[in-house]
């Protein structure tokens, strides 16, 4: 991946250039670490704002984009927690489910013409099962699926040893496989 800059960030213009370079990568990290993809852009914005405020604390011991990706992960965890808190009071259409008499669950979802209805339904189900995985298992599993991401890179972002990343990914695969098999999605 490009823009592996580990140089000190001296000015606002520097930071702006980095933000521009890293945005697609950070968006992918946000997409893989959040529960709701609709929030990914907001998370990246918030992370860039925090990065900008805290750039003086950046010691240059890793590429800037990895440092920013760590912030993205933190923001997305906090974002979900605050969202979860709010959801105790508010119910969004997107979170509504209807349980049929036969025990089947229909999820409310706004129309999306970009995907085939059947495929979309399946992806929504996969998405839901993935979101049920604990953060520490879900994030490495999804990050590995991001184009060009490697185990050492994920280890750096999540700040855990590469061996742990591997075993968490394996555990996540296993749990997801069981969940999807039960629902006959896999």
């Amino acid at each position, binding site marked *: 991946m490009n823009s592996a800059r580990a140089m000190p960030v001296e*000015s*606002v*213009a520097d*930071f*702006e250039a980095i*933000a*521009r370079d890293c*945005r697609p990568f950070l*968006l*992918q990290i*946000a*997409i*893989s670490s959040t529960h709701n*993809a*609709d929030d*990914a*852009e907001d998370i*990246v*914005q918030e992370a*860039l*704002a925090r990065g*900008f405020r805290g750039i003086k604390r950046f010691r240059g011991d890793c590429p800037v984009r990895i440092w920013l990706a760590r912030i993205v992960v933190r923001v997305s965890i906090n974002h979900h927690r605050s969202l979860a808190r709010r959801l105790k009071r508010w119910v969004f259409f997107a979170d509504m489910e209807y349980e049929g008499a036969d025990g089947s669950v229909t999820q409310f979802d706004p129309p*999306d013409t*970009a*995907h085939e209805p059947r495929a*979309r339904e399946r*992806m929504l189900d*996969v*998405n839901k099962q*993935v979101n049920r995985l604990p953060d520490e298992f879900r994030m490495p*599993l*999804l990050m*590995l*699926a*991001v*184009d060009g991401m490697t185990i050492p890179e994920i280890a750096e972002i999540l700040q855990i040893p590469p061996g742990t990343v*591997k*075993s968490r990914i*394996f555990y996540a*695969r*296993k749990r*997801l*496989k069981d969940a*999807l*098999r039960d629902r006959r999605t*896999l």
Partner: protein
Amino acid sequence: MTASGECAWLNARMEAFFSLDLPDEERRRAERHMDACDACRSEVAALRAIDPLMRELIEFRTARAVRPAPRRVHMSRVFASAAALAAAAAIVLALWSPRTPVTPNSVATAPPAATIEKTPLAPDSPENDLGKPQPPAIGPAPSATAGEPGDSRRADAPAFVVADVAGYERTLADYRGETLLVGVLSARQPQAGENLERINRALGTRVRLVAVSNVRPAQGPKNATFQILYNRGSKLLGAQESEYLLVNSTGDIVDRGSLLGDSSAILRTLRGELKNLENR
């Protein structure tokens, strides 16, 4: 060794098998077993299916995450509105002409009322919809923009488009439903930024402050509590440098003034206007 014993053996090494950490000999043994055992083969196939599925999920999420680009000025609407304004101007000219003969020159220098005042609705738009682009002004843009950076003096510049540090554009439609205070920073008059900071500290909870700079990098006050946005060649609703605009939740300008001078006087005015808005 029994089949189930071999299954248990493979199961215990599944993680190493997937991480390609299994020694060659054990790997061959695992593959031999999978050839013979349907259950283990389908187990491994199901685990292998997860990764492509996750790539599909990332694509699916990406499609949802990336918002469509902000809407640009819709040309058909522009022509419709421009035509409506031109027709209105023709009627006005026709009424005036018996007394004051109008030369083409005097038309061109007529004050551009439409750029600053609330943009009049074209007959084809029944409601004042903020999401729709404002029609461009006819005639020259406000005079003071001459010599300023950016292309905000272009007659066809949009009414209000600003962008944040990362390049995200926002229009008035993005602030729909909020009382907005648009403050324009000035590189030559740092007092505008300082007063804006005082206003934000005092009224930050009652209005949404949008501090805009025409130049990059912005010359804001140190340790500003507000985010600075950049003008993307728009008219900023006619606001000049070191000026503020108070915009109500439906997008109408209710007050405008200078950000220079005594901040407590500006605050007093703004408090009064906000009270009026809240009482309404």
